[in-house]
């Protein structure tokens, strides 16, 4: 197994862990962290799988850079709304999820 393929497998494991956490946890901050773990996993898959047996490839690396920017932006927006929700309602979970 090449190192690139190993990266892809780690990515798959991270994605699975993230999805598991996303479904199991009710606390919104934990769900956001789980989402970020899933995101990192998919970036590893994107880079690892594309470079397996083909050598270095700039395209997936550029894509992952863009993807990280998007993930940071969405995490920031989620945190802002989450904090506001906590201040308004005093809850850290969504209503029906209690």
């Amino acid at each position, binding site marked *: 197994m090449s190192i690139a393929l190993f990266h892809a497998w780690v990515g798959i494991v991270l994605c699975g862990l993230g999805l598991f956490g996303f479904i199991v946890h009710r606390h*919104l901050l934990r769900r956001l962290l789980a989402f970020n773990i899933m995101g990192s996993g*998919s970036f590893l898959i994107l880079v690892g799988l594309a470079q397996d047996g083909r050598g270095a490839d700039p395209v997936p690396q550029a894509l992952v850079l863009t993807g990280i920017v998007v993930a940071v932006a969405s995490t920031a927006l989620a945190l802002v709304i989450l904090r506001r929700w906590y201040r308004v309602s005093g809850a850290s979970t969504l209503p029906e999820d209690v």
Partner: protein
Amino acid sequence: MTAPFALPWLLVVPLAGALATLLVAQRWRARVSLALLPLLWLAAFALLGDLAANGIRPYALGGWGAPLGIALVADGLALAMILLTTFVFSACAVYAVGHPGGQGPGAFLWPVSWFLVAALHSIWLAADIFNLYVGLELLGLAAVGLVALTGSAEALAAALRYLLATLLGSLAYLLGVALLYAAGGSLALADLAALAASGAMPRVALAFMTVGLILKSALFPLHAWLPPAHGGALSAVSALLSALVVKASLYVLIRLWLALGPPVTPLAAANVLGALGTGAVLWGGWMAWRQTKLKYLVAYSTVAQVGFLFLFFPLATGTAAAAARLAWDGTLLMLVSHALAKAGMFLAAGNLVLAVGSPRIADLSGISRFRPLSLFSFGLAGMTLMGLPPSGGFTAKWLLLQSALASGQWWWLPVPILGGLLSAAYVFKVLRHAFVEGPKRDHFHSPSAALELSALALAAASVAIGMAARVPLEWMRLGSPFGVTG
């Protein structure tokens, strides 16, 4: 031959609008937005002229070509979506200017909705699957921002739920992009057809992307986030979200499905999508009928109407060319007329709620004498949703029924008919309450003429497009697999 100069402007104008409205003082935001609208129209019509004169031509942003640069391309369908976006956004902008709630909590309405338009345009014009991902993500963030705008506890909860759904959907889509790139080494939509022979990878990728995109389109049973998000937002925001945002992920799904072609898109999966669409039509219609709040009724109606659009997949996968073309025509006409009707209906519903000062349907009694124009717009939009002739909804359903007959899939026939009956049930529920002469009230507020006319313009357009469907349908086939000119 000059480059298709209109394409970049379709992104530059809304981005400039977003930045300009963010920088100027709050009281100038609406005026700056209205001043920029003609530029958006100009760019859209320049694209129309370019497409008519020179045909389909790609444009590389900043002179950087694929694979690292961003390529834009517009075919007939993209042009139709751009004109639709521009029209719906203009009507919503006129509405928001006149809306009394647009000043306080709505201060960020302008920058964020301009970002929403930029994200929509980047999706309509994208030529590769990764730019579609970025567009979908930007669209999701802008839409969540608009839902959270009022800052109330309900709005924040709806926005959070929407955000979690849209992030999960984007991630599933991104995984699909990773698998497709690993399989074929290309991101361009045009190169995806070559992947057909490369084993199971494209199928797995398509499965991930489909699940992510139906979550974003709120297809039954993944629709739970939609009603609170669309029903609880400001009316102009609800109209934009229901008319355009849920259609964007469906647009991406249709593009992917057609680009990958039958070897990768199994009929069984298409039938599952059709069955889920049927479930959406029935469940959404039933839930809409049971609502007590007017805007939630309209929001559940979106869940139902999105279901019709998913009939495209069984009707156009592996069927004869004539049946597939009818399905394409019917689905896109349904998409456009639903966008116009639903935007009009949300604006009209917003006017009715504003007039009686209560979100409940039961409090509408007596409104028919006071706000006949808003009620008329609501009914006109309802006519399209029910599919009464000569509205756009009628023509679209007629094309879908013909496609079901031509492809021999008679079991889809009852879906548009039952869906139309359910739509009639919930539209008439509202009208019945509106015509009841309830206890005498003398405190109806009157929305300004701009509010009523913007709702009427959208509702009237949704009916008019049914009578003049031939020309837009011919345009939308341009550059599609169903086109005569290719």
